[in-house]
């Protein structure tokens, strides 16, 4: 039954700054099953975007993958040369929609021109064939093909987001990483884009990694959740378990409590006091300890990520 398309083992990604290495991703392991949508959640600075870039072996400088393995459809991508990754893996097997990508469209070229540029860079395609692919992919994300003749400023935020999703799907990857694809959008547009993503997943038989800080959005699209804190996995379980009252890690519980629920009337919204630790010098022991309301003496030692129920892992001494 288990058929992982992405396997990550003991992955570490550090940013080598003048002040020392920032351990953005620190010994992370997980799997993405075929046909699954995994929600990667956590606060800003927890390492979720860094982890996303590591899955395509493209950490942003001065970042470097210092340890671990990433297998995409059985290919150990970190053992390949850059050129091989570019030719055989990136955008072919796995692609990414960066956060804010819709704002990096060139204002001076039509959508069709820049889509064609991207397409040609990866796969030389005759003009007529390229036009067919571009129009087809625009249609697939719910845009009229005449969008190809328009400039980015003539499109709404939602339409631009659809364009960058279409570009990520050009070369028919099996796995797509989506980094906060709806965060900057209005709620109605957000819901429309989420619908499109679910639709695409079904029709193209994709496996998705959906990065977000918003558990409400995560619940909408994902089957399983992976909560990150300070570069590490705090908890991972099915969405049913996490949202059905089974969350065990205090960080997950506090994130859940801090997520506003429109239809429930509350007088106070919960929040998580303090801020995530500096990853130049993460605290000794459990990294959540300084903010944790239930920390006890055992938390001076770092808890390992261990299975507390089938398919449910948590890194907390209280969960044992």
């Amino acid at each position: 039954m288990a058929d992982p398309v992405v396997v990550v083992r003991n992955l570490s990604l550090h940013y080598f700054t003048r002040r020392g290495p920032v351990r953005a991703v620190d010994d992370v392991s997980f799997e993405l099953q075929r046909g699954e949508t995994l929600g990667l959640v956590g606060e800003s600075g927890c390492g979720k975007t860094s982890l996303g870039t590591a899955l395509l072996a493209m950490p942003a400088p001065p970042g470097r993958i210092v340890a671990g393995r990433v297998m995409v459809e059985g290919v150990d991508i970190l053992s390949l040369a850059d050129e091989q990754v570019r030719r055989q893996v990136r955008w072919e097997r796995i692609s990414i929609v960066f956060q804010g990508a819709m704002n990096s469209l060139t204002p001076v070229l039509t959508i069709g021109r820049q889509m064609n540029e991207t397409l040609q860079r990866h796969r030389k395609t005759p003009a007529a064939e390229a036009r067919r692919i571009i129009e087809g992919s625009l249609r697939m994300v719910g845009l009229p093909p005449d969008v190809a003749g328009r400039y980015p400023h003539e499109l709404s935020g939602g339409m631009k987001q659809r364009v960058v999703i279409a570009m990520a799907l050009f070369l028919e990857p099996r796995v797509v990483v989506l980094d906060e694809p709806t965060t900057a959008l209005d709620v109605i547009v957000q819901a429309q884009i989420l619908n499109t993503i679910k639709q695409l997943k079904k029709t193209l038989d994709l496996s998705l990694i959906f990065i977000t800080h918003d558990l409400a959005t995560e619940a909408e699209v994902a089957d399983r959740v992976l909560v990150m804190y300070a570069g590490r996995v705090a908890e991972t379980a099915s969405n049913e378990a996490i949202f059905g009252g089974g969350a065990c890690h205090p960080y997950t519980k506090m994130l859940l409590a801090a997520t506003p629920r429109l239809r429930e009337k509350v007088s106070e919204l919960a929040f998580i006091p303090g801020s995530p630790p500096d990853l130049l010098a993460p605290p000794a022991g459990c990294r959540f300890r300084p903010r944790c309301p239930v920390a006890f003496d055992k938390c001076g030692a770092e808890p390992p990520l261990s299975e507390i129920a089938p398919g449910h892992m948590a890194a907390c001494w209280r969960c044992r």
Partner: protein
Amino acid sequence: MPAQPVLSVKDLSMHFTARRGRHVIRAVDGVSFEIRRGEILGLIGESGSGKTTTGRLVVKLLSPTAGEILFEGRSITRAGRAETAAYRRRAQMIFQDPYASMNPRFRIRDVLREPLIIHRMGSNRSEREEMVRAALSEVKLVPVEDYLDRFPHMLSGGQRQRVATARTLILSPTLLVADEPVSMIDLSTRAEILSMMREVQRARALSYLYITHDISTARFFTDRLAVMYLGRIVEVGTADDIVDRPAHPYTRALISAVSEPSPGRVGTLRELPIRGEIPSAAAIPRGCRFHPRCIFATDECRTAPEPGLVPVGPGHQAACRRWKEI
């Protein structure tokens, strides 16, 4: 209940002309509302609804093309120089991006001292220093010594927004316009900032105009909500009325689009009771301006004059001629 509202906005419009008058962008197109003392009014809507322009009009960063704004019963739209200066002290704005709205080369002390100097408050240096310290502790940036000499980039988003709030409070305002004050802050700390803002609001009986696209926090934070669409208010009522008993089809769509953190929706598409995206304010549809996106629209909605706000419940109004049937 005091008879006179702190702020009353009457039939306010802001039309921008572009391309030498060939395009008229009706960003705000006939908006009226009131805010009482100690009340928080939320103005919600999508990008392009005119909510930010309305906020800028209220603090007089823009002059309206039509309509009037009364502050404690006096017109500020027609106020002279001195009166405007006094109003600018008493009506303060908190911006979405606290980093962009602070001089990066100012230390926090200077960020807070600047409005005092501009408005000639505090008689000398040491008195102003005292005011700066008091403002920082009011927004819970304590001990204040830890913050006074820092630069904005050394603070977290939440701390910067506290400084932005302190900078307005230091002038003892009556009215605060807060434009998406927490949308750039991590979800986990948004509630902390909003709680602080509300504590301050209660302690000083301030009035807020809270502008946001986020209905979930608006429900928790506000007393009343006004829903804006394409330059107009289409529905207004208590926060509970708007969320639990929405009357306008646009409000219904907004609410149905909000996700909740509960499982079981994976893979299921949600039917949204709305079509397409918000049109440009340069081409506002005739008839009811919402009709092209409305799933309940009839021929009358397309051709008859635009419906105004009508009562649909106590203190609850909506601008839809079909609200009873739908």
